[in-house]
């Protein structure tokens, strides 16, 4: 059991990071902190997908003189790039919402906002 976990420690790290992010979102009241928690979760998922593409002793998959197989899988990188774009737009939208919440209510603490409702 522990050996299996140790062999896959990169995956375990991603899951732990994911849970830390989730904890921050649930436990913190400040909306910016919640957003940071979301970003930690995103990073965890991206890190996981990048590690999926690792091949032992793999070269960068760029053809040219001196390129020798085995190559690392390039597909996960393309996925993560797309994922980062999505994450940026989510973050941008969330930040603009936080700004508008602050303008309207004068606070970005979730517990104070709940009292106002």
């Amino acid at each position, binding site marked *: 059991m522990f050996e299996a976990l140790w062999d896959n420690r990169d995956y375990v790290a991603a899951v732990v990071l994911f849970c830390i992010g989730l904890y921050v979102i649930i436990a913190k009241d400040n909306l910016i902190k919640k957003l940071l928690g979301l970003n930690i979760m995103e990073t965890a998922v991206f890190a996981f997908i990048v590690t999926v593409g690792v091949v032992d002793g793999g070269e960068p998959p760029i053809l040219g003189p001196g390129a020798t197989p085995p190559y690392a899988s390039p597909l*996960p990188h393309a996925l993560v790039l797309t994922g980062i774009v999505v994450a940026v737009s989510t973050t941008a*939208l969330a930040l603009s919402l936080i700004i508008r919440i602050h303008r309207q209510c004068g606070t970005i603490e979730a517990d104070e906002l709940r009292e106002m409702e």
Partner: protein
Amino acid sequence: MYDWPHWLIVVIVAPLLGAALTPVVSLGDRRVAPWWALGVMTVTSVAAVMLVMRVSAEGPFSYLPGGWRPPYGIELRFDEFSASVIVICLIGWLAVLFSLRYIEWQPGMAKARVPYYYALLLLNLGGMNGFVVTGDLFNLFVFLEILSISSYALVAVSGERIAEMAAFKYLLMGAISSLLVLFAVGVILSVTGTLNMADVARQLTGSAHATPAVFALGMFTVGFMVKAALFPVHIWLPDAHAIAPSPVSAILSGLVVKMGIVGMVRLYQIYNTAGLIDLRALNEVLIWLGALSIVMGAFFAIFQDDIKLMLAYSTISNIGYIVMGLGLSTHYSVIGGVVHVFNHALIKAALFFAAGALIYRTGLRTLTALRGIGRTMPVTCFALSIGAISIVGIPPTAGFLCKWYIALGAFEADRPLFGFALIFGALFIFIYYIRMVNAFYFQQPTRPEVLEVSEAPASMLVPTVLLAALCLIMGILGRVPLAFIEPGATRLLAPLGG
């Protein structure tokens, strides 16, 4: 006509491109924006009709953008479940028409921003079209994000006091569920080395990696459950759907939450074909959560005075019906559940449009304040009543057949308890719609202005009445969608020996 192969890409690209161009074409005159959106949606609807004609003639077919063969390229796959594009286009078209007057009136909405509203709306509809036709897991995630992020923004546009807070809550839960889906996609990629759904199913067959596949299935399910607003994770839905402008509420409640269901159907397609995991445990969870959603959604709806909040809770209840239908996994229940995806979209859009028309004319949104409105806005209130009896499931309306099929499925699966839960939920729903009809037609008005308003303008009346009429027509011609979806449902359940 319908065998032109490129209709399948038109249905995605037209709204997405149209969305990007909306601010440009309306630079000179912002009143162009709605007509542009209407034109784009007309083109998309034509494509959708062609696609549905082709699938009913030939069965499922694929399109390979750029000619890259799967599993290397992205595959678009159109099957019976993808036929939801036609409902998406219909309601999208009507929502644009409805927005024409509504969004100009919407308080807190700057006039200069109106083109951006239509751009978001088109983006949302294009994302949904892409989501239901894609045959690639990562593509599924991308379209899920397109439709989700535009939904968060659309909730916030109303500018009402707690709109941003509701949108933020929606964003947090939605983003977490999207990340779960992405994580699961990564796990699937690491286990199978492919992202094409059909190929994933092939690779998973007899695969040695059952544990990660279970892990991925769990994350997919939770992710899609949040998107579909099933009972324990529904908390984002009522505020978001009630605060959004009414045409947006119709799209969110009628279509966007259904995308979680479509995702779930796609999962079942993969995992049933692979046969790697026994799905009975998952089915059990879905049946119970579905039943809980039915009862709790209906229960909360009874205590709402705000008409849109009431409709939002009833959405939770109806999602419960669909999920229970899927979970029961019998022939009848799956057909009933999937057809309810279509029919509930029509009914809920009709209800939200009618509610929007009432709010537009009176500025009031509680049942108490709207008492007696049936006298001054008879057509809107009649449409609302049709929608109401339809959602309760009184024959001969659209809601009846699906619920009947799901109940039949419950008895077929030898789970009569859930058949009774369904009937119990319908009774609850009946109570609160009786309350509504009673308030509109039989109670004395509490506000004098209710008696001075006139009937809703044509751009609102047409979508409302059309959808209400469809609720009746779909009840009478209910066999058509049931027969249409049957081959798809049979194929979904075939690997189980059902």
